[in-house]
Every structure is written in C-alpha cells, then in structure tokens.
C-alpha cells in the first residue's frame, strides 16, 4: 500500500513536471518566434550584454554606436575594427551609487550592471564591416571576445507608401473619402511583417485591425475624444480629482502601423502613417 501511494505520488510529480516542461518549452518557443526590436544578447557565462549587429550612417559621426553592459566594474573593454571602419571605446561609465540606475533600464536590474562602455564606430562608405570587442578582467585575462556586424549606409525602410494611389507627404495624407486602399513597398533590406490600422473611439481608446498589403482601411469620423490619465471622482466621494487631455482634431485621424522586418539585423520596427479625413 505504501509503495503504491508513493508510486502514485511519483507519477503525479512526474506528470506535473512534464507538463511544466512542456508548457515552459512552448513558452520558450513562442518567445523565440517573436522577433526582437534590437540585437542585444546576454552572454550566459559572463553576463555581459552586447549587440550582435548594428546599423550606422555612412560618413557621419556616431557615438555610442555599440553599447556594452558589464556586470563587473573592473572589466575593461577594447575594440578593433575591420579595415573599412574606425572604432574606439569613447565612453566608459561606472555606477557610483548602489541605488542608482542608468536611464532607460529597469530599476530592478540596476545593480546587475556596474559598468557600461560605448564604442564609437565610423564608416566612410556604404558597406559591411565588423568591430571586434574584447573584455578583460583586472588580471588582464580575456573574459569575452565577440564580433559585432556593422552595416554602413542609410537603410530605406519604405520605398513608397500610398493611400488610394496617392503618395504620403511626411507620413501624412488628407482624403475626402471614408475609406481607401493602403499600399506599401519596402526597401530591399526589409520585408513586411504586419499592417494594422487604428481608430480612436470617443473614450480615447484606439482599436487596431490587421489588414493585408493593398487592403482596405476604414477611416474614422471621430476627431473629438478624451484621454483620461486618472480619475478618483465618484458620485458619493467628498473629494476627488481627475486629469487627462481633451482632443479635438482639425480632421479625424486614422493611424496605420506598418511592422517591418530588417533582414540584416533580424529585428522588427514600426513605421507609422496618418490619414486625415477631410469631411
């Protein structure tokens, strides 16, 4: 009897563990399938974070082109560029307060990074190159050495975007129609991931709808709405306050969000267009 119980327990635990692993595995796969918006990776052994690839403009100053996050304040970074590029460690920052944080980072992650380094990369001409960076510890021993791919030149995300055949002007367009066909042609380094369009309702919430390229976009007629940030005013409260922003557009606006995939960096980006309904 005793053994049977323990067998059941064992089996149950096994089944539960299997379920957990399967779910975790799926979750992992689902996460891996979601394209990233940046190329930063964390080296598992050292905890050093760095980008695997970057884009820079040709013949233009760019500081902090490559950011490196070091979990140890004694680590030193050096950089060496391929012959078509110039690279230099142009900034080294050390955290001086325990409770401090580098802007843009999660407060919870603060103490993880004691030091950050910025490598400036310059490329006179369009093309591809690489920058190899080496991290050494206080004894001068190499902790990590990696190569970062560098794509030099302006990367055109969108070659042409039209609404009812008319090209956008600074990502915006005016129309007297209540709907229209949105068409987009991307630059050679980019492929289309998704097109969504969004309209505000009177409560200031935007709802998005996914369409295909050359698909139909239904324009909103709502140009007046309120976006509430906060509200503690209730019918039976003695005191309370509320804040927000009231909008009353000249012409109601529909937003078209185009998600593009960068074939070189293997990342996604969003390009937004605005259609104003001139009624």
């Amino acid at each position: 009897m005793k053994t049977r119980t323990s067998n059941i327990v064992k089996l149950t635990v096994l089944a539960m563990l299997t379920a957990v692993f399967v779910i975790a595995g799926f979750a992992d796969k689902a996460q891996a399938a979601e394209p990233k918006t940046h190329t930063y990776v964390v080296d598992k052994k050292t905890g050093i974070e760095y980008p695997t690839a970057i884009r820079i403009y040709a013949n233009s100053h760019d500081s902090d082109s490559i950011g490196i996050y070091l979990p140890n304040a004694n680590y030193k970074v050096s950089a060496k560029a391929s012959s078509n590029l110039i690279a230099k460690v142009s900034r080294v920052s050390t955290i001086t307060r325990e409770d401090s944080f580098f802007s843009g980072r999660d407060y919870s992650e603060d103490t993880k990074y004691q030091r950050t380094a910025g490598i400036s990369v310059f490329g006179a001409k369009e093309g591809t190159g690489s920058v190899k960076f080496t991290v050494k510890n206080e004894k001068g021993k190499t902790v990590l050495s990696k190569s970062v791919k560098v794509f030099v030149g302006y990367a055109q995300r969108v070659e042409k975007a039209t609404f009812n055949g008319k090209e956008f002007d600074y990502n915006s367009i005016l129309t007297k129609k209540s709907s229209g066909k949105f068409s987009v042609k991307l630059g050679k380094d980019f492929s289309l991931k998704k097109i969504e369009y969004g309209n505000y309702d009177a409560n200031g919430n935007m709802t998005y709808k996914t369409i295909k390229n050359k698909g139909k976009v239904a324009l909103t007629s709502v140009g007046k709405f309120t976006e509430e940030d906060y509200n503690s005013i209730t019918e039976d409260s003695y005191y309370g306050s509320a804040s927000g922003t009231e909008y009353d557009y000249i012409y109601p606006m529909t937003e078209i969000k185009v998600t593009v995939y960068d074939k070189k960096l293997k990342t996604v980006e969003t390009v937004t267009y605005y259609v104003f309904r001139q009624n």
Partner: protein
Amino acid sequence: MRTRIRIQSMLIAVLALVAVITMSQPAAADYTQDQENGVSYDDTMYCTVGRCQKYAYGGDDTSYIYMTNDGDSIQNVKASSPNLIAKVVSRYYRKYKECVSDDTYDEQGNYVPAKYEIRTDYGSTYIACYAKKKGSYKVTFDVVKADGTLRCTKTIKVYTTYPVTKSPIKKVTYAGKDIYSYYPYTKVTSGKLSVTMNKGYKLKKIEILTPGKDGKTVTKAVKNNKTIKLAKTEKYTADNYSSKSEYNSLFPCTDIRITYTDKKTGEEASYYYYLYTLNRK
C-alpha cells in the same frame, strides 16, 4: 540604456542638422510671455498649404499656450480668413471635486444633502492650423476666466512660407577651403581661418572653443585671417548623480563662434561652426 543611446546619437544628429538649417533661417516661432495676465504662447505659426500632420507639439504649425491662473480657458479661436482653419486641438485638464457644504438640516428639520462642485483647470492648450491657400493670416483667441468674463485677447501670426533672409555670414574658410568641406573630420590640425560677412553686418569677434581636460571649455579669441589650432583630443570625466563617465571622443570638436552686429539695428548675434579632427587613441 540602449534605446537611450540610440536616441541620444540620433538627437545629436538631428541637433547638428537643425544647427546647420538654423544658420540659413531665422528662428521659427517666437514665444511671448504676458506675466500680468498669466498667459504665454507661441505668437507665430508656420504651416504648409494643404498639409495636415499628427500634432507635432512644439512643431511650427501649433501654438503652445500656457495659462497660470486657475480656471482660465481658451475660447473664441478665430482665423482672419476662411482659407485658414484654426482651433484648439488639445488641452490638458485637471478636475477637482470639492464639497462646498456638508450634509445638514434646515430650520424645519428637513434633510439637506451636501453640495459638491467640480472645478476644472486648463494649463496647457494647443492651437493648430490648416491652410487651404497661401498667405499671411492672423488667429485671435480669448483667455476667459472661470466666471466666464474675458481676461484678455491674444493674436497669433500665421505664415504659409518661411521668410528667407540672407545669412549674415557670407563665407568661412579654413586652411584655404570652405569650412563645410571638412566634414566629417580633417587631418589638417592648424590653418588660417577667414570670415567674410555679408553687407549690412559687421564682424565683432571670433572665438575658438576647445575642450579642456576637466570637461570645461577653453575659449580663446582670435583675429580674422589668423592661424588657429584644432583640438586633437577631447578627453574628460563627467560626474552625475548616479554614474561617473570617462569620455574620449573619436572626433574631437573645435567650435568656432562668430559674433557679429547688424549695422541697422545694432543687434548682436552669434553663429557656430564646427571642425573635427580624428583621434583613434
């Protein structure tokens, strides 16, 4: 941090571009402050005919109005012509619910419930415009007090084209070539700097600003047509609240500040030019 870094470098690029553009154009919009009435606003707007944009706050086609008096709001926005549409496109509000009298009983012993009031304050308001035709327009708006009475009326000028004025500086050469030809960097670390002014402007002084070791800028006045030396390093340490940073720029920068006077108005102004060297170490 990573996005911040990208944004920072992009910002620098944009600022550099803006700096170049502003060299040939006058300041876009002017900000007027009326302390007596507690109103400040952009008194000039520029908009392109037939163009509507997502409200680019701080953009030239909007006027940002800030009111300091509680309960003040903007009303009666009027355009001088039917060819211009102008209206309040957004305003930030704060509402306060306050109890103005508690629950009570009147003389007859009848229950009188408490009374509440909701007070609304509008601090920041944006007026935007849309031009159907080219022209110069005016937009007027009233600042109205909480009790509905008029506090003041203000006017915004609207143009559909930027006024083009000639740059006060005709040409700047360094080591015999146009200063712009040295971008992104130069190996010529010293050379003759010559400034030529346009008619109507007088060159007042030329200053060379180079980075010092302590992060402070070293300013040196030089005469026109004299040899200047460019910074070969830009190395400094900067402390801030949370971190200490050591910088060692790849492109040490030398600023050239040219100060001139407008012969007609006597007004003094400065323009900046930048020269970069390359420092691989």
